[in-house]
């Protein structure tokens, strides 16, 4: 019988089938549904917002246009800016502390196992627990602000989560220029790297691209102003507390990633380097760190998508109404379930999805390619 030959494939397919169906419905189906909802006016008419069978109209990209250029959606724009700053500081903090801790433990101090457990422990907590603890610690009148009194100084007065200070402010209308300049700089950096690696054609290509983007940024972008009025955004200092708590939670995880990498480096390599006369500093900067690059990349991707989607930590630490620590995921919740603006909430959700996809998809693609090659 012919079909017997294919039994394996058929059983294989049947075994995976439920999961394919579930993922198709509950992941991709709902992404599609959210995408569709974000293109409608669901919520604009209160009599349809919560009707049993809401009647909605297709309005194209209007929700997105409002979010980026509408008069009353400045909070969303500040949230986007906050997310970028938060992601940068959170990633930098986790990678730095994770690497330092990993190197420390890699030197096998006494009680190594204990320290490893201690550093990894915060990762075992949920963000809600972390958030609640740090909320208490960061009360303006207590906790961290009282630390200086231990050494006889006056208590600190920084307001942490309730601070309303903002630094590095820029006008939202300058954003096209800023993005253009950043893109040009990135392309230029890639070009320099390619040049160093001796790949001339690639280097020239990227250099030309960089020059073209630079031209666009300087020549065309200033004429494109999204808003008819100036609107300043910047880094809210209230986020410092959130970054501290988030790094506290995730640095141990990053350490574990690095530690796995460090133990994977063969002893011969280190010995060879030492024989060649490399000191400790050179050993780390020239040998070990370059070998850690893939781990840094995976850590950045894992941490990056956590930071873009962050919701529970901020909710527990500062509550959903504190606009100075607001992030898009919180705004999505408030817009949808308090303001009944379902379509606009869906639009924020889709924007978040696109941001996360920008991080995850290239990574997945490179992983898949590797898998095929192997």
């Amino acid at each position, binding site marked *: 019988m012919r079909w017997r030959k294919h039994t394996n494939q058929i059983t294989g397919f049947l075994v995976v089938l439920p999961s394919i169906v579930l993922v198709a419905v509950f992941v991709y189906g709902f992404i599609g549904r959210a995408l569709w909802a974000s293109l409608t006016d669901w919520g604009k008419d209160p*009599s349809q917002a919560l*009707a*049993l069978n809401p009647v909605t109209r297709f309005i194209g990209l209007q929700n997105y246009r409002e979010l980026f250029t509408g008069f009353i959606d400045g909070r969303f724009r500040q949230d986007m800016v906050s997310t970028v700053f938060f992601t940068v500081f959170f990633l930098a903090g986790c990678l730095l502390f994770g690497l330092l801790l990993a190197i420390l433990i890699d030197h096998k101090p006494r009680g190594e196992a204990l320290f490893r457990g201690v550093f990894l422990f915060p990762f075992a907590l949920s963000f809600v627990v972390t958030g609640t603890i740090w909320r208490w610690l960061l009360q303006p009148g207590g906790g961290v602000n009282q630390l200086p009194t231990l050494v006889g100084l006056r208590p600190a007065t920084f*307001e942490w989560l*309730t601070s*309303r200070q903002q630094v590095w402010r820029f006008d939202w209308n300058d954003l096209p220029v800023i993005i253009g300049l950043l893109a040009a700089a990135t392309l230029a950096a890639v070009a320099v790297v390619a040049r160093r690696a001796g790949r001339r054609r690639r280097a020239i290509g990227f250099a030309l691209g960089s020059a073209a983007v630079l031209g666009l940024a300087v020549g065309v972008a200033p004429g494109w102003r999204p808003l008819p009025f100036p609107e300043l955004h910047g880094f809210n200092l209230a986020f410092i507390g959130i970054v501290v708590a988030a790094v506290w939670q995730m640095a141990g995880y990053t350490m574990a990633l690095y530690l796995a990498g460090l133990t994977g480096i063969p002893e011969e390599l280190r010995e060879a380097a030492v024989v060649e006369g490399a000191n400790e500093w050179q050993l780390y900067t020239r040998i070990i760190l370059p070998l850690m690059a893939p781990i840094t990349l995976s850590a950045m991707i894992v941490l990056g998508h956590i930071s873009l989607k962050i919701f529970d930590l901020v909710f527990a630490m500062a509550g959903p*109404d504190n606009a100075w620590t607001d992030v898009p995921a919180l705004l999505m919740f408030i817009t949808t*379930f*308090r303001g*009944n603006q379902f379509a606009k909430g869906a639009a924020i959700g889709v924007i978040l999805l696109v941001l996360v996809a920008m991080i995850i998809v290239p990574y997945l693609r490179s992983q898949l390619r590797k898998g095929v090659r192997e």
Partner: protein
Amino acid sequence: MNRPGSFFLAAALASLFATAPARAQDKLEIFSWWAGDEGPALKALIDLYSKKYPNIQVINSTVTGGSGVNARAVLKTRMLGGDPPDSFQVHAGQELIGTWVVANRMEDLSDLFKSEGWMAQFPKGLIALLSARNGIWSVPVNIHRSNVMWYVPANLKKWGVSPPKTLDEFMATCKTLQGKGVQHPLALGENWTYNHLWESVALGVLGPEDWTALWTGKLKFNDPKAVKVWATFGQVLEFANPDASGLSWQQATDRMLKGTAAFNVMGDWAAGYMATTLKLKPGEGFGWEASPGTGGVFMMLSDSFGLPKGVKHRDAALKWLRELGSKEGQDTFNPLKGSIAARLDSDLSKYNAYLQSAAKDWKTNKVVGSLAHGAVAPEAFASQFGTVMEIFLASKNAEAAANAAQAIADQVGLGK
């Protein structure tokens, strides 16, 4: 399958089918955000209900979170999913009408009001607030007052000031107090308490007619009169504690009680907190006055219960609503909750000194609705009002805040 096993399974299935319809009739699910401090008052109501209808099992679904912020989100997902609770708590007024009545999800309770004789028992102004589209949509359980300013009489005496009656007097008194070392005379708490303070200031600046006109769309937010509200609000904020957004409303009230601040503007659930939780005597441990400039006006909010369309236990829910509106129900619930009855014939001897004074004002004062607590504006406006507040706090620009408020009002079609 072995035989005893299949037998048990069949028996279990049979019993399930046999009992399911009977049990389904004997249930009532009520959905509210009354937990914690407010839990005992709700429990007293449920106990009363269970005593009257012992064969109805009451399922008490509560979702905690001040002012129902979390409960409302859960309720929306349930309603959208076609699984309405038999009766749910909702702030009387636009929070109910602007969200649920316009979406055609509620049953009209006019007949219940007529058959129970409630048309005469509840004040006309309150019934007007519950009515829209030729129907009455929920049963009010209690009345809270939003525009109250709290203080400690002994402290004011010590500082040699008397409670201010107008906004100008308030500013002058606060300056005097700052001279006497009370740096931040006004105690303020987390974000929503800013909105709460704003509505008291706005009522003080505008007066009841213009305040109401704001919500019917007759007075624009960017009208000079309404812009002045923001300017005055900014001046009032100068006297508030800068770390406000880290404090709960109770912590803000505590500051006033401890004497680090002199005044606290908060709804009269604060009286419940001070009298019940902190065991202070109304009039001695704490004193009260209508917030500056709002004497003779009662800015009210009311918790009410409605009947969604298509519920599973409609009869039990109607019995529940009947109890809520009854004199016995209201006088059981309100002394414990720290609010006054919505009915005009409640037995005042069951209430403490503060509530008796509030009940008197309720009968004699001009009644207006609260913004921060869902009475005058639909949720789409109220939830975005926080954004307006942030615009003002960030820029201290009254014009910008007023324009943003008007833009949102236009967007949600306020007053239409």
